[in-house]
């Protein structure tokens, strides 16, 4: 058996059923070995970055490790943004790159780059395989590292001669033993007692839930804790779809671009319980101030997150699901929070009923999203890009019991469509929606080829405001001197682009007929593009 065959065999041992990739000379042996295994699906992306994003969307929906595989040199460097995006959102991913022959490493030969060196700052770990006999162990360790503790991307760089080397024998290890890697799982019982005590003393407790809850699969535990203790919940962007919008304890998303109600809750609460959230700058604008006012409990699998952005009075390190279960087993008290909930509930209702502006010949994104969300399936998957479209979606799209996928940590434009494709591979029967801007769409619309090739049903909502909206919004405020370099003049006729890929489109430019258009859009069999005409001066605060 060759190294390439051992690589594919190892992936099979990890139950890999799909790879997102792009071939090139140095990965050819692995691709050749893959050909023998039709049980592993393969999506040919149109640029390597999107192999990373697709693997990310796949991982987030399947709960498994996403796998992408590209060639050395430019293939590997193109993938870098995909890896960095996954790293910032703690997505379990294994990226495999081909590499030049090992005896030529370091000579700058054709298509050689030091990819393990390049991704070191934003990958969880990486391997440069020097001997094919190591491949089974390396793959086993990579999947283990990617999926456990705080998940993240792991890169395996395999020189072509190692792919061609014969193994002495193939044996897939059953266990891993990495002496420097032992993530904590259970929370400290003493600390849990302190948390319970803190909850019983609080009048205005608040849970702030982030992407870590999804990663641990702890949605049910989170909801149970909130409900049993009567504690309202705010979320970061990564945790947005953890609770349905109409849940009485849901107070929305915090942050610079979040819901007013959520931010109000954050400053007024007298006990903050952070669950799988890292209190980064976009979510918590003034951590020092919040800290001065209230004690914080921080529950996270990554000890390095605790005390990084905010000091925690009670740190609790371990798997979020396990810790929440430990807390629930202690019969946590019902907080004395009736007044607090009343107070926040008023804010929340006012915000949910907020009137959006109207403009002749245009639709307002908030209006489109509010109406669209009501019409979506209970478990729809929505992938949203970056910019005003992201902020509007996170703020106003009604959540049910589905998922919202976005690049929260790195804010990578062009994430939405490939992530949606990955999600579609993982869950072919779920309703699959993309929301994007006309700038973002032009970064990833080449992936319509993958949509077309697989005959996927993905509904794309495009907010066409003819500008890089969020930057335009920033430039129109102090200290800048007005918009520059944000006009998207020269953009194509998006309906014609979609048509070129065999995808029909609809236009929405009038709010009176909007419901009909949305119904038609969602009812269409197969992919469809909805072009929403949005005025370029629209602000996310409108």
């Amino acid at each position, binding site marked *: 058996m060759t190294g390439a065959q051992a690589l594919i065999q190892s992936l099979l041992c990890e139950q890999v059923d799909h790879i997102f990739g792009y071939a090139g000379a140095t990965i050819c042996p692995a691709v050749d070995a893959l050909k023998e295994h039709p049980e592993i699906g393969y999506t040919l992306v149109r640029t390597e970055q999107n192999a990373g994003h697709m693997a990310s969307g796949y991982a987030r929906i399947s709960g498994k490790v996403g796998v992408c595989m590209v060639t050395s040199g430019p293939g590997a460097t193109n993938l870098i943004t995909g890896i960095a995006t996954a790293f910032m959102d703690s997505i379990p991913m294994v990226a495999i790159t081909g590499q030049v022959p090992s005896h030529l490493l370091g000579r700058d030969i054709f298509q050689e780059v030091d990819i393990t060196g390049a991704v*070191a*700052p934003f990958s969880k770990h990486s391997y*440069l395989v020097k001997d094919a006999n190591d491949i089974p162990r390396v793959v086993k360790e990579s999947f283990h590292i990617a999926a456990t503790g705080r998940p993240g991307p792991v890169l395996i760089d395999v020189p072509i001669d190692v792919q061609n080397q014969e193994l002495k024998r193939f044996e897939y290890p059953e266990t891993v033993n990495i002496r*420097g890697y032992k993530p904590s799982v259970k929370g400290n019982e003493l600390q849990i007692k302190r948390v319970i005590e803190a909850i019983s003393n609080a009048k205005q407790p608040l849970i702030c839930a982030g992407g870590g809850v999804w990663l641990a699969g702890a949605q049910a535990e989170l909801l149970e804790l909130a409900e049993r203790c009567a504690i309202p919940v705010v979320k970061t962007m990564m945790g947005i779809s953890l609770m349905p919008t109409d849940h009485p304890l849901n107070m929305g998303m915090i942050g610079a671009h979040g819901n007013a109600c959520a931010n109000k809750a954050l400053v007024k609460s007298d006990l903050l319980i952070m669950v799988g959230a890292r209190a980064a700058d976009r979510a918590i604008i003034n951590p020092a101030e919040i800290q001065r006012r209230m004690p914080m409990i921080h529950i996270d699998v990554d000890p390095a997150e605790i*005390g*990084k952005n905010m000091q925690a009075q009670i740190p609790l390190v371990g798997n979020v699901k396990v810790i929440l279960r430990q807390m629930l087993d202690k019969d946590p008290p019902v907080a004395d929070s009736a007044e607090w909930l009343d107070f926040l509930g008023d804010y929340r209702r006012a915000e949910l009923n907020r009137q959006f502006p109207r403009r002749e010949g245009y639709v307002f994104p908030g209006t489109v999203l509010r109406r669209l969300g009501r019409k979506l399936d209970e478990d729809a998957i929505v992938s949203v890009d970056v910019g005003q479209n992201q902020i509007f979606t996170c703020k106003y799209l009604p959540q049910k019991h589905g998922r919202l996928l976005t690049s929260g940590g790195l804010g990578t434009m062009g994430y939405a469509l490939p992530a949606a494709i990955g999600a579609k591979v993982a869950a072919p029967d779920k309703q699959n929606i993309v929301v994007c801007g006309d700038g973002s769409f032009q970064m990833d619309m080449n992936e319509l080829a993958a949509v077309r090739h697989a005959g996927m049903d993905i509904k794309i909502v495009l907010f066409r405001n003819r500008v890089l909206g969020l930057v335009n919004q920033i430039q129109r405020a102090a200290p800048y001197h007005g918009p520059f370099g944000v006009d998207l003049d020269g953009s194509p006729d998006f309906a014609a682009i979609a048509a070129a890929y065999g995808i029909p489109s609809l236009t929405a430019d009038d709010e009176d007929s909007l419901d009909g258009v949305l119904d038609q859009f969602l009812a269409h069999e197969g992919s469809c593009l909805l072009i929403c005409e949005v005025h370029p001066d629209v602000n996310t605060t409108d």
Partner: protein
Amino acid sequence: MKQTISVLVENRAGVLNRITNLFSRRAFNIESLAVGTTDDPTISRITIIVDSGNSVVEQVEKQLNKLVDVIKVRTLDENSLIGRELVLIKVNATPKTRQDIMTICELMGARVADISPTSLTLELSDTPDRIEVFEDMLRPFSIKALARTGVIALQKGSGNI
């Protein structure tokens, strides 16, 4: 404040790069760094000295712990460690000055590593403070070259990092 971080790592290519990355991305300077294998040839010990506040060092210690190749991390305070550094100093030495230099060497417990008609190369293994004193004492004779290894450290007593 100067702090000594002692890190046990897998003895593998690329590990040092990952570790120094954690410092450089936070834009803080490593004052000294020494690497060598331990009694177990698969494990290396990296001794890092940084000059910065407690919270920064605490964060770096946590980030170091996250690295898969890092087995153990410990920040040692001044009083709980034995730290030593080796220095090689080449000074100008004529028959006239040689004896004065030798006297300094004797006082400091340094040895002569090499000798030539115009120079002496001296070696001293000691604490960084005493090495600095040694260097100051030799400066009047004109130092031609100097190399320091960086500090290596072990915990005092029976603790084993």
